[in-house]
């Protein structure tokens, strides 16, 4: 065998290895989803979505948990979106580039890597105890807002950076102020990227369990929350609760709830991908 043949052989070997590695993730995901579908798909009907939780598996539904998740989603969006975008605009457009902004930048990136349960502990102390909000939807949303803020800030900064500087120059040269330039040019041009980042971070928030358990979300709530101060449950906690029950019926319920939760996050991701593509088309 000469050298060229050896190199080709190595090339082939690596390709096969690479395919194998790619398949590990894919196969596991397919197996998981398949397993869940087999267990749960028959359980999903309108009643399952609309029923309140019950001690009997077949009468139980996810209505309260789903409503809790939607409440959390809405409030987290309202809280995290303006704060995150504003912070990103400040860092990108106003803050002087220097040691202080570099320090801020590193810390925001670090915050994105802090385990979510730590945010839960922070939320418990600050929102539940000090601000006395109790184990409410509001306390949960505030906690999750903190959790996804770094992600929103990073995503927003990236999309603001991607706006060509020629657009800024043109706006300034026509006598626009900084704020007019940001509001009329930079935000519309970067909205696709910002929206993508926000949706992806929210889909992470919807799946979070640990911080909400720490904050005091309940596994069983008799009614869906009707205002931000009420106690709540969310889908992941409901799933966790059902899985820990011995009866087989609850395992089916858990599988069915997982399907619904996956549907929600897949849909959110699909919307994010749609906006990203639309946005890229505009600029390329």
């Amino acid at each position, binding site marked *: 065998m000469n050298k060229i043949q050896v190199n080709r052989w190595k090339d082939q070997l690596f390709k096969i290895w690479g395919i194998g590695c790619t398949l590990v993730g894919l196969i596991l995901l397919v197996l998981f989803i398949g397993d869940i579908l087999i267990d749960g798909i028959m359980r999903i009907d309108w009643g399952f979505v609309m029923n309140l939780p019950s001690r009997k598996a077949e009468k139980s539904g996810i209505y309260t948990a789903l409503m809790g998740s939607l409440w959390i989603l809405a409030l987290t969006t309202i809280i995290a979106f303006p704060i995150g975008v504003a912070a990103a605009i400040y860092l990108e457009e106003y803050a*002087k*580039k220097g040691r202080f902004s570099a320090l801020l930048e590193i810390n925001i990136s670090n915050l994105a890597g802090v385990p979510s349960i730590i945010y839960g502990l922070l939320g418990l102390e600050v929102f539940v105890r000090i601000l006395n909000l109790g184990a409410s939807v509001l306390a949960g949303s505030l906690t999750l807002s903190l959790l996804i803020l770094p992600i929103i800030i990073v995503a927003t900064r990236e999309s603001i950076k991607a706006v*060509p500087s*020629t*657009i800024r*120059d*043109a*706006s*300034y*040269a*026509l*006598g*626009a*102020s900084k704020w*007019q330039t940001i509001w*009329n*040019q930079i935000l*519309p*041009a970067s909205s696709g990227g910002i929206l993508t980042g926000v949706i992806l971070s929210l889909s992470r928030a919807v799946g979070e369990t640990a911080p909400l358990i720490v904050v005091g979300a309940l596994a069983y709530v008799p009614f869906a929350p009707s205002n931000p101060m009420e106690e709540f449950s969310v889908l992941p906690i409901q799933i966790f609760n059902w899985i820990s029950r011995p009866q087989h019926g609850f395992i089916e319920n858990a599988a069915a709830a997982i399907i619904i939760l996956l549907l929600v996050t897949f849909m959110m991701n699909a919307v994010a991908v749609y906006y990203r593509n639309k946005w890229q088309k*505009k*600029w390329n």
Partner: protein
Amino acid sequence: MELVAEKNTKNFTMNKESEQESKTKISIKNARVWYGDFEAVKGISMDIKPNSVTAFIGPSGCGKSTFLRLFNRMNDYIDGFRMEGKIKIDGTNIYNKKIHVEELRKEVGMVFQKPNPFPKSIYENVAYGLKIQGISDKKVLDSRVEKALRQADLWEEVKDDLKKSALALSGGQQQRLCIARTLAVEPSIILMDEPTSALDPISTAKIENLIFGLKEKYTIIIVTHNMQQASRISDYTAFFYIGELVEYSKTKTLFTKPEKKRTENYITGRFG
């Protein structure tokens, strides 16, 4: 109108003929610019005449664009930018702390190297400068948009597609749109930073014609790498070299009887 009283022998002085024309639109006295430690403009003084086209020529990196961007303070946002000296427009020092840079830029418009229309409709592009001034009357906007597009020689081509995206226009049309956008604000000075360097010869010719017509009403300063262009369209030409003004005179004089050896070498293509 303030006249230049003191004359630094090192700095350029206009020839006698133009000294008699006492009108000055922009007066620059000993302007220096640093970016951090780098001195990009090394003490330039010159007077720019109203209703004329002045061309800035010189090799890349000679500071001519930086110098041009002093007149509408576009360097202000660049990190490490520092400037000394005085620049007066119609007798007002534009680096005075009381000057609102937004107001200055309504008076001193700018067209850039690459056409940079906003990703909006043609109409919105031209109306932008007016809308940010708070003008919202549809009739006023319509008439000023039309006027600006006519001035920029673009009206006939786009009058039926004003709602169309500006990005759908050709490069040359986009650049004329950018000129129209600048004209709509009704400045008295227009700065052009290599406005045709990204365009084909036909589009370039159209823009040159346009510039020729515009000097009746406006004071135009154009940075160009193209010496034929400078000689075709400008009344005065300034030659820059490594942050210094080497020679500045009537275009005809500079291109036929340059005083300095370096200018001659540059315009005859021996370097640069």
